[in-house]
């Protein structure tokens, strides 16, 4: 039947969901087709019947009151407690600022230590761990001139178990620095030197390495420079090398 295609869309038409252009055509057809108009009429009646029957339940006065009250006290309370909340907010803000500052510092420091460990591991894993290969500090030190924006001293290693393998430039958070590699009883130790003021996180004087690092590590600040000594050697070896650097002239 020719009307079947119209009737298939009759509900959509009566729901007002047919596109506007099609709506006019539909109107014209329904007006002139007895079958479709009768069908449309019964469907409209059904829609109205459902609409009337569907509005069946109303909330009780008690429930309505309860709901209104559950919202109303919030406004009264907010006025009464305004000053208390404001005061509390100030305290929370102060504590929050302090805490976030503390956590931020701690997290920044941990990040620096982690990056130092990463640099150490990455260098040891590299096929060319150092760019200047020399056991002579008088060769290694001048190699850094013009490559990093500061100068530093390398310790004299005579009468010690440490030997210098060489050095390379490195970067910590885009800050250039020196990376020196030492050897002690077949353990490699990295020494990093950066300008203190260029580092992204403020590190406490002689702050210790976090316990979660899998290496022994020591760090300190001296003459505006920040030193890190890190390696899988014993803590005593790390400390010995650190002491050599501290007294280097």
């Amino acid at each position, binding site marked *: 039947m020719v009307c079947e295609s119209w009737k298939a869309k009759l509900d959509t038409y009566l729901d007002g969901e047919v596109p506007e252009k099609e709506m006019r055509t539909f109107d014209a057809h329904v007006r002139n087709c007895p079958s479709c108009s009768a069908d449309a009429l019964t469907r409209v009646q059904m829609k109205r019947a459902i609409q009337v029957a569907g509005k069946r339940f*109303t909330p009780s006065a008690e429930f309505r009151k309860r*709901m209104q009250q559950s919202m109303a006290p919030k406004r009264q309370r907010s006025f009464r407690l305004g000053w208390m909340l404001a005061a509390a907010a100030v305290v929370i803000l102060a504590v929050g600022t302090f805490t976030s500052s503390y956590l931020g510092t701690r997290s920044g420091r941990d990040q620096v230590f982690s990056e130092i460990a990463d640099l150490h591991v990455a260098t040891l894993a590299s096929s060319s761990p150092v760019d200047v290969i020399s056991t002579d500090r008088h060769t290694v030190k001048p190699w850094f001139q013009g490559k990093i924006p500061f100068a530093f001293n390398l310790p004299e290693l005579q009468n010690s178990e440490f030997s210098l393998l060489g050095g390379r430039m490195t970067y910590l958070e885009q800050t250039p620095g020196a990376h020196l590699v030492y050897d002690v009883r077949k353990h490699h130790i990295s020494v990093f030197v950066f300008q203190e003021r260029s580092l992204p996180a403020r590190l406490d004087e002689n702050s210790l390495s976090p316990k979660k690092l899998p290496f022994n590590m020591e760090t300190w600040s001296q003459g505006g420079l920040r030193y890190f000594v890190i390696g899988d050697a014993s803590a005593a070896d790390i400390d010995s090398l650190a002491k050599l650097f501290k007294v280097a002239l």
Partner: protein
Amino acid sequence: MFYYVDVSGADLQSDSFEELAMPLFDQLYNFAHWLTQNREEAEDLVQETYAKALKGFSSFQLGTNFRAWMYRILRNTFLTSRTGLKATMTVPLEPEEDGPELAVERDTPETILFERANRELLQSAIDELPVYFREILLLCEVEEMSYQEISETLSVPIGTVMSRLSRARKTLRDRLRPQVQAGAGTAAMAKGTNHGL
């Protein structure tokens, strides 16, 4: 009535929530009662809906349909309730994307229904519909939601809205038919006549 609310960020306060949400109170309660089929559960559902909506009001997306958002919260809350889970244990077997139903016949349940103005009969038939038919029928006919709004409320595509609505109407009609016929028979016998349906 369409209820598109464009709420600016500054208005996202509990006061503005109350202003927007409380006018929907009666209709949300009606819908909740149809879903739960129990007064106390309906009250709990509405209360929980308002609590959730207020809590999540800051996440309400600006420029979207507030009414559909509230109905969606109510419906989702219902679906995760014990009653809701029980009610949705039965799922539609027919494919969702069926086309709309074709014509209704002459002497249909709706014409007879109207002649008798039997509202209770219709209410009972709606009550017996599976929840996924009941809700879509009520959203369309009682709440007068557009297909788009229903689509947002039920989180289904518009094509699904159309086909599910069509099947809901057909199911309702089919369920009304025997009741109406029985009623008509009884009435005819009482009058001593026999007008077939």
